[in-house]
């Protein structure tokens, strides 16, 4: 079943690429690669797993739309990568954003987390579960 589906996806990707409509984005200014909205490169996938493991959705919403915490769809349009890293690792404690520099998973996957959220902000990555782009 999976094999069939993957095969089909691959075939589609190739077909689309052939038509010059490739969905796998790998332009220089994009820190992620994505196809079909839910297949991403390994780094981005680990970023999503980090997002999920640290329960970021409890404040920022399952679609990053913002709840108690701000909308990351919006924030990622404003923040530079360095500012993003600073916010996540050092926190904005007064506003309720913890400092995640104590989390090995966040420290190791900060680039992937940025990539994932940038992809969400750009509308290129869908909310919810992701798979690895083969």
């Amino acid at each position, binding site marked *: 079943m999976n094999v069939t589906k993957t095969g089909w996806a691959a075939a589609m990707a190739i077909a689309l690429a052939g038509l010059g409509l490739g969905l796998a984005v790998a332009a220089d200014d994009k820190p992620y690669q994505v196809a079909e909205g839910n297949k991403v490169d390994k780094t981005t996938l680990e970023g999503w797993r980090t997002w999920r493991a640290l329960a970021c959705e*409890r404040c920022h919403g*399952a*679609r990053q739309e913002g709840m108690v915490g701000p909308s990351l769809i919006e924030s990622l349009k404003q923040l530079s990568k360095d500012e993003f890293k600073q916010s996540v690792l050092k926190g904005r404690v007064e506003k309720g954003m913890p400092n*995640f520099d104590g989390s090995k998973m966040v420290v190791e996957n900060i680039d992937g987390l940025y990539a994932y959220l940038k992809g969400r902000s750009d509308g290129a990555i*869908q909310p919810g*579960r992701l798979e690895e782009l083969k």
Partner: protein
Amino acid sequence: MVLTRTCTWGVLLGLAALPGLALANSEVIKLSQDAKNWAMQAGNMQNHRYSALKQISTDNVKDLRVAWTFSTGVLRGHEGGPLVIGDMLYIHSPFPNKVFAIALADQQIKWKYEPKQDPTVIPVMCCDTVNRGLAYADGKIFLQQADTNLVALDAKTGKELWKVKNGDPKKGETNTNAPHVFKDKVITGISGGEFGVRGYVAAYDIKTGKQVWKAYSTGPDAEMLMDPDKTMTWTDGRMAPVGRDSSLKTWQGDQWKIGGGTTWGWYSYDPKLNLMYYGSGNPSTWNPVQRPGDNKWSMTIWARDVDTGQAKWVYQMTPHDEWDFDGINEMILADGISVKGKPHNVVVHFDRNGFGYTLDRTTGELLVAAKYDPKVNWATHVDMKTGRPQVVSKYSTQAQGADVNTKGICPAALGSKDQQPAAYNPANKMFYVPTNHVCMDYEPFKVEYTAGQPFVGATLSMFPAPGSHGGMGNFIVWDAGTGKIVKSKPEKFSVWSGALVTAGGVACYGTLEGYLKCVDANDIGKELYKFKTPSGIIGNVNTWEYKGKQYIGVLSGIGGWAGIGLAAGLEKDTDGLGAVGGYKELKNYTELGGVLTVFSLP
């Protein structure tokens, strides 16, 4: 009368050697027996949320109007409610946990207390920075701060009398619960089940703040204050000793050390038995596959001796939780409840798991366990011999496994009811229960523990119970003797507000849109009064009398778990639409902001 005499005798007999011992208890009991006061968060030690006042009645409740209002100056979720003692009203706020003493005569602020707290606790607080209110005894107001500091304030001046640290926020330990004064102790718990906190309750001397005992929910018998031979539990249709290492045996390795079982609910106390009752919360993590075993004693009803902390009996409602059905909800003590023709003095508990439990509170025997929302589907029933829920494999996130999205589980993680406490009317022996009517999809995944970091391990999507009235709540009347819903009144949103029932024949509660509603207690389908307060209500409705007039007061201020929004979408953009169309719609009704609204007749 009897109590006054006991007090006097106590003094005459010279209790100077035992300073304040039974006295504080008598004082609070006496205050709570005078319906003019609202001296405890639930009105009394039995958690009744009942008032003998009857000036406001079914006939005239329609004429209620706002007498006065008061802004706390704080956004975020406002849970709990005001205390009234004599001519003073005491009200609290969420973080930063302000306390105001307000003179009822002219609503002047007599004193204000605002603790300095480390803001790093804000992000560690699960489901908003709520606080469920104050306690009073011995001329002191007790505040359980978010940063775990338990503080005693002079009720007259607001002066800090003592302060003690109850936990460590660096480990994810915070407090949201109201402190409870039983006898000469102020008893508090801990929050942090989503940070792998090991739950406990602790008792402090009301005079000095000195810790008298501390009892964990998990771990070695000695640390749980559990006697393997004397602490009893329901076993094969009778009460039997728990035996040695009853918790340790039900965990893999050292997982009990980060195993949850936190204690942030509403406790009650039976002065005759000298037992306090409370519930422990979910085991950590939310991924059941990662923590094999029954995970005792998370999800448990506890009866403890207030003097020693020793556990008299325990009953685990949801062994090996797979849905985050915290067992912390209020424990209501009712006398003479007839079960199968036999009267019992019972503890009644409406659990997050959707079952309403009735246990003999002296012995701990399981008498009734029945669904208080017909949509509950994760278990078919509770086997009355073993006391275990019979789990339906289709809705078992353990059976479906990690990285599988188990769909259509009822209730959702926030339970058929969360912390919002029910009311009990001793006159008709009926329970008035604010409930949720929400189901969920639940996908557990593996997580690793880091101290002070979230330890959740599941992605959830919640939506109104399918195939029902489309709303996300009900206000119900429950018969705890038979385990039957007597009447159910549908609500658009979860009823996340503590109920009140009075001798005037009215039952009142708040709604997430912000309405205070009063209904006929004999027929809750009859809505007699509603008023739109400034924000959504997750506070509890309290009542008191001042200068011959009855007042009803409630905090509004949307927030908490229900209020911060539960929209989700696990797989595709459309999957979470139920939730989006559900709680998200709250934005059409209400905004943040804490206000106490006080009502009276003209």
